[in-house]
């Protein structure tokens, strides 16, 4: 302990004798560390926000869409372009695959809607009542349609928030009617906004699939099954998602009579999978932000090196005196490296505080969410001390290599 104490005191007194200079040097490190922490916290915050939005679509959601999977060397069929999934597939999945909570087949059609003097082109979704549960939908007013309304093919619509705002700018849409072609739909609910996300229903309306089949011409497969645009389902347990996906795959392959070598004519994706992909992308972005901020840390480090070189030059005589008193190269080296490290360590600590406050303020006032995590802090401090050691090494080595006679003669 004592062995480290003396050089530490020498190092700190070196820092203390030039308060302004030390402060400015530290400032470079403070800015660097604060920038790293702030930018990386923004990256982490954005990542967490997007993941939570994906989870809000339904944490245990699995979506099946028509179209091929990946082909080697070929072109993948665009998702949704083929008509291979059917309502009967959905029924079979619900009946035969275990761990399933709810299954929601749906079809889509682009239609022009008219209400009063307003009109709008929207994607109309024909769905079963399970759709509400599977996609975690909530209504801000009114209700989702019931099993009875579904079975009786009632001409009712649940509309997205943007649709509501466009078609009914001044009034409550619930209880009012919308014209779609020759059909009059009764609005029974308005959906809560999900923001701009894949799978958002803000600019959609949802009507019973049975009603959709009556109103809009539906295609059928060669076996006479009713084609749907996609099948969404939720599993009872997130851990079972892979098992469920595998079972669905083999069930659909046998139902679609695909030979052992044929590609799937459908794609299965889960929110888990989507979240993982997005998370990976966001992590890359976070690292990129951190790397940009690290440049300022590097500049700060060069500032430390600069000051240390000046400090060694200024204190040449002191170094000579210490050497005459019996200081070894190692003693001199330790003194200066500790001085550099204590500068950057102090800068690192202050930088953490500043970065933390900055990301808190940004998180509270801005639209960007922030998240400071322990690993970022540990990274920033160890990098700042590392920079001190790295950029302090050369000046300290210079000092330790001085010739004592010449050093004593220096002014």
């Amino acid at each position, binding site marked *: 302990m004592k062995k480290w104490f003396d050089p530490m005191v020498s190092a700190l007194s070196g820092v203390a004798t030039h308060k302004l200079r030390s402060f400015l040097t530290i400032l470079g490190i403070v800015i660097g560390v604060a920038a790293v922490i702030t930018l990386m916290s923004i990256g982490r915050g954005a990542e967490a926000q997007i993941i939570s939005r994906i989870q809000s679509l339904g944490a245990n959601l699995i979506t099946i869409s028509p179209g091929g999977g990946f082909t080697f060397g070929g072109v993948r069929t665009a998702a949704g372009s083929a008509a291979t999934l059917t309502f009967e597939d959905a029924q079979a999945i619900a009946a035969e695959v275990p761990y399933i909570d709810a299954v929601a087949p749906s079809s889509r059609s682009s239609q022009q809607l008219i209400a009063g003097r307003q009109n709008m082109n929207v994607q109309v979704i024909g769905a079963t009542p399970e759709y509400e549960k599977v996609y975690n939908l909530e209504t801000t007013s009114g209700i989702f349609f019931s099993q009875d309304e579904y079975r009786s093919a009632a001409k009712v619509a649940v509309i997205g928030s943007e649709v509501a705002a466009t078609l009914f700018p001044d009034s409550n849409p619930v209880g009012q009617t919308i014209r779609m072609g020759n059909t009059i739909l009764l609005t029974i609910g308005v959906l809560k906004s999900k923001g701009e996300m894949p799978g958002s229903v803000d600019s959609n309306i949802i009507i019973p699939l049975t009603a959709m089949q009556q109103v809009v011409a539906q295609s059928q497969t060669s076996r006479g099954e009713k084609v749907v645009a996609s099948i969404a389902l939720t599993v009872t347990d997130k851990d079972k998602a892979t098992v469920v996906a595998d079972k669905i795959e083999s069930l659909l392959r046998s139902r679609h009579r695909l030979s052992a070598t044929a590609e799937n004519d459908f794609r299965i994706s889960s929110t888990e999978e989507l979240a993982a992909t997005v998370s990976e992308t966001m992590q890359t972005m976070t690292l990129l932000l951190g790397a940009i901020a690290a440049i300022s840390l590097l500049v700060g480090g060069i500032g430390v090196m600069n000051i240390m070189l000046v400090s060694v030059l200024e204190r040449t005589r002191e170094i000579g*005196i*210490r050497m005459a008193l*019996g200081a070894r*190269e190692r003693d001199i080296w330790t003194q200066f490296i500790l001085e550099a490290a204590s500068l950057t360590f102090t800068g690192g600590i202050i930088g953490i505080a500043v970065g933390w406050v900055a990301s808190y303020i940004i998180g509270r006032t801005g639209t960007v969410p922030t998240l400071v995590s322990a690993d970022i802090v540990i990274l920033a401090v160890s990098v700042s001390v590392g920079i001190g050691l790295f950029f302090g090494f050369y000046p300290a080595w210079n000092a330790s290599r001085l010739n004592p*006679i010449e050093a004593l003669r220096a002014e």
Partner: protein
Amino acid sequence: MITLQNIVKVYPMGKRELTVLRGVSLTIGQGEMVAIMGPSGSGKTTLLNLLGCLDKPTSGRYFLDGNEVSRLSRSELARVRSQKIGFIFQSFNLLPRISALANVELGMRYADLRDRNLALEALAKVGLAERANHRPTELSGGEQQRVAIARAVVKKPPLILADEPTGNLDSRTSAEIMTILTNLRKEQNMTLVMVTHELDIAHYCQRIIRLKDGEVIAEERL
């Protein structure tokens, strides 16, 4: 205590070489007090640097306290300086930003001594016990040199080297300093070698070695 055998020191000066010491041999006994005198350029400072293990001879052998030190590495020489040698300089060479006490403690640090009482004791011996917490800039020249003496003797080294210790002081202060040095040397039985060009200062010593052009030209016992 000190045995020099045919010490030669050559400095490279660009393409030419400058021979500063041309075969110096001498012996200094334990507890002896010796003055080295000579005109400037005679090599007396170079000789003192070699004796102080701040430099190595080009050829020749140097035995200090029975051990040959002329072949040691930089860090081994530093070890010898920390254990066996105390320096006193003409310009005092105290660190200006720390107290007198801290300066004395600095003299102990590299000898791995960590006893503040020893430092206070050394300051008391040079009569500066009350000024322990003053910085060098708050002290007179004579007081500064007394701090430097305390720093040199605090680790009780067998050898004290002084380079013009009174060169920057008036004659009355010089006499004080020499009295302190002489008494401490006797008390701690240290060997003291000093470079000076003042004959009355040299007369505090038991022997004067005269150098000229890098050679010992005369020795006189007093």
